[in-house]
């Protein structure tokens, strides 16, 4: 047994695999002599970071440019010469303390930057057109009161037309495109009434201009676009920021697999490139990159993030290991059993996709409003036209004019702003607190949930063992801690945490899967499992235990539990106070889950579930009409997260769970779900108010338009006033939340 021991030096941390660089030079973009590398940077927040990173890199004479984008935390470095210089670049940035990961910009950046630039271009054109035309329109309106010559009026209006037409062609493009897509797809969205409004305003104004009529509304169309584009652009920025943060989380967790070649060489390959049969080396503290069977080494694996089991599992040669587990104690060699696309992870991803298709897209409030709004407004316009044709003898042209005025007055400007304005403010406020929302409508769905289903391990609990039975005398604890401090084993760390001032003892030997031993002048001290410490009997209470034996002293038993998070009780009570029902869905063993739930006063408990069973349960709930918020951080929770009505994961969670979740909460802060739920409920209340406010303006003004009393000036005032009201009201969703009493 002694042969398996290894002298531990507490100062030595697991190192990054030595030749990770190989995979990095594959990320270099080549443009003749010019080389470019894109890196994601973790931990850069301020001017000092920009200066340190860029300064360090530009001091290198080969590097021609280094630019850190602080919004997206992306670093782009260009240099001339050898592509392997990428390795030195990464090393020198890591040396100043920033963790970097190379990425391929092909996949994501361009889309974001392109759509942001297009919105800005459209916005600036709309701003130019609307301000200049408003200037000319004001001259016409005041001129009409002071007998301006009709020729001058028409000159000013012709100039307006010349500015408006190209401006609409540029600034209206995002709306026309989306409206066209919706109509071709056989449904309607908020852009359909916007597009129809803009086009009808412009066409009618042109006709009126030619006829020397009064109803020239050239100012309305660019103003409408300008206001809506401001909303779109802000919305884009908030979303791009959340999206970039989520992508960063996922990419920073990507790990290479250290593959042992026959010649003793170790190559770091991307996990996707590992083939079945290859031997992979996993050091202590590293994440297992691929499913496999252990060929060499004994260790303990932390599988909490994969299966939801809270306590470490001992493994020995022959034992199967799942990708994503964290190797706790000693280095392991695994033989890969499957390629990545046939691994457990791939199975989970398939379940996630299935769950997403079966859930289907949610209909947002904005869509619902558009679906009610569009037919009503167009119906009223049609009635106006027929009414004027039937009951007056002014002719079809005048009737059409009045019908189009109805369309303009019932302008969807405020309706179009009502929802996004609130979402921008609310998501922006949450973003500042580190809460990421994948989509704006996540708030809508969250506000209407009636059940919350929690995963246990890592979500409600700490996800690691905590020492629950402290020995009475301090000396025993200190002795145990001095041995424990030398090990990375989760149970040892749990002991060491209770005496943080105790230094690790020199000469501790670790027997992986067994325990720790220290030879002293008096004899051997052992800390480990019962058999290792010579304890012949087992206490039947299922608790995880560690024994301490010392020469000449009675042995001591330490027990551990995966305790609830400190804020779990508070978070659950807060959710209950909002009349939400609580349940636990866990992959951990049933008795453990039951005991845990009892501790937190939760009645509805489902333990021992596989990922597929979790989906089944959630789908069963959905068929009962329950709207479930699922919260989980593990790989095994990902399918359930995708199946639930709305879902939340954590920044410490497994990447698969983060990409399946709608909301990502800051690591280890469970109580933030209360804040998110409260602000979601408030945001929906404000959205409803906004829709009502917008409708009120229309109810007041549309009758005037029907009987033909609305002027272009009146239309401009109504539009600005309603947009302003809606926007100001939306700002309330960013106010700090009131404390619940």
């Amino acid at each position, binding site marked *: 047994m002694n042969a398996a021991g290894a002298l531990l030096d507490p100062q030595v941390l697991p190192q990054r695999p030595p030749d990770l660089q190989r995979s990095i030079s594959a990320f270099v973009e080549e443009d003749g002599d010019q080389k470019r590398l894109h890196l994601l940077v973790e931990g850069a927040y*301020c*001017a000092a970071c920009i200066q340190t990173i860029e300064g360090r890199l530009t001091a290198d004479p080969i590097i021609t440019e280094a630019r850190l984008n602080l919004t997206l935390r992306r670093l782009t470095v260009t240099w001339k010469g050898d592509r392997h210089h990428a390795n030195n670049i990464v090393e020198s940035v890591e040396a100043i303390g920033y963790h970097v990961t190379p990425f391929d910009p092909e996949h994501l950046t361009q889309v974001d930057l392109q759509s942001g630039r297009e919105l800005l271009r459209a916005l600036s054109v709309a701003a*130019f057109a609307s301000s200049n035309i408003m200037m000319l329109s004001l001259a016409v309106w005041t001129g009409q009161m002071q007998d301006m010559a009709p020729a001058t009026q028409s*000159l000013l209006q012709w100039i307006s037309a010349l500015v408006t037409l190209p401006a609409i062609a540029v600034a209206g493009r995002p709306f026309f495109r989306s409206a066209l897509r919706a109509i071709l797809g056989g449904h309607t969205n908020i852009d359909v009434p916007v597009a129809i409004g803009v086009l009808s305003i412009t066409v009618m104004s042109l006709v009126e201009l030619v006829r020397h009529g009064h109803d020239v509304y050239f100012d309305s169309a660019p103003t409408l676009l300008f206001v809506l584009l401001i909303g779109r652009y802000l919305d884009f920025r908030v979303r791009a920021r959340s999206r970039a943060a989520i992508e960063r989380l996922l990419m920073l967790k990507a790990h290479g697999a250290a593959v042992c070649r026959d010649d003793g060489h170790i190559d770091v390959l991307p996990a996707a490139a590992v083939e079945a049969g290859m031997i992979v080396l996993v050091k202590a503290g590293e994440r297992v990159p691929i499913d496999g069977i252990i060929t060499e080494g004994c260790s303990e694996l932390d599988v909490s993030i994969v299966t939801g089991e809270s306590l470490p599992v001992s493994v020995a040669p022959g034992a199967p290991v799942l990708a994503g587990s964290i190797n706790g104690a000693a280095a392991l060699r695994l033989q890969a059993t499957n390629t990545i696309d046939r691994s457990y992870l791939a199975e989970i991803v398939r379940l996630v996709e299935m769950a997403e298709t079966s859930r289907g897209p949610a209909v947002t409030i904005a869509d619902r409003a558009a679906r009610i709004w569009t037919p009503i407004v167009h119906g009223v316009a049609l009635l106006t036209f027929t009414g004027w044709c039937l009951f007056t003898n002014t002719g079809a042209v005048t009737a059409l004019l009045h019908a189009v005025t109805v369309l303009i007055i019932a302008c969807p400007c405020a309706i179009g702003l009502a929802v996004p304005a609130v979402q921008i403010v609310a998501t922006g406020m949450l973003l500042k607190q580190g809460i990421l929302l994948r989509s704006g409508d996540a708030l809508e769905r969250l506000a209407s949930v009636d059940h919350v289903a929690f995963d246990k391990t890592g979500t409600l609990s700490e996800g690691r063992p905590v020492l629950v039975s402290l020995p009475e005398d301090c000396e025993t604890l200190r002795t145990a801690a001095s041995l424990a401090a030398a090990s990375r084993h989760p149970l040892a760390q749990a002991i060491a945490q209770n005496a943080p001032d105790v230094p690790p003892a020199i000469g501790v030997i670790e027997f992986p899967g067994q325990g720790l031993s220290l030879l002293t002048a008096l004899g051997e001290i052992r800390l480990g499992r019962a058999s290792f410490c010579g304890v012949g009997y087992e206490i039947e209470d299922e608790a995880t235990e560690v024994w301490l034996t010392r020469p000449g002293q009675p042995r001591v038993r330490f027990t551990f539990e995966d305790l609830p998070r400190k804020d779990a009780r508070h978070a659950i009570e807060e959710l209950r106070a909002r009349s939400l029902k609580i349940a636990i869905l866990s992959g951990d063993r049933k008795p453990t889950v039951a005991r845990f739930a009892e501790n937190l006063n939760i009645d509805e408990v489902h333990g021992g579930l596989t990922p597929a069973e979790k989906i089944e349960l959630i789908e069963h709930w959905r068929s009962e009409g329950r709207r479930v918020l699922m919260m989980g951080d593990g790989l095994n929770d990902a399918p359930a997260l995708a199946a639930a009505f709305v879902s939340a994961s954590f920044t410490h969670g497994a990447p698969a769970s983060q990409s399946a979740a709608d909301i990502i909460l800051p690591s280890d802060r469970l109580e933030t779900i209360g804040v998110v739920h409260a602000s979601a409920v408030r945001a929906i209340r404000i959205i409803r108010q906004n829709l009502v406010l917008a409708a009120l303006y229309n109810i007041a003004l549309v009758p005037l338009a029907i009987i033909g009393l609305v002027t272009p000036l009146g239309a401009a005032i109504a539009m600005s006033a309603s947009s302003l009201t809606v926007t100001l009201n939306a700002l309330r969703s960013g106010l700090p939340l009131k404390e619940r009493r």
Partner: protein
Amino acid sequence: MGALLFLIPIALLLGGFGLLAFLWTVKSGQYDDLDGAAERILLDDEYSERNR
């Protein structure tokens, strides 16, 4: 009336120059990193000269 004939084109032209300048800033990527731009004003001039 005569004044309008050249004042309005001048006003539109001036505005148009502003618009073109803005479109150029968008095209050259000056709005791609607003957070970074906000922080960069804190950096010393000699630093930004060197890093040009």
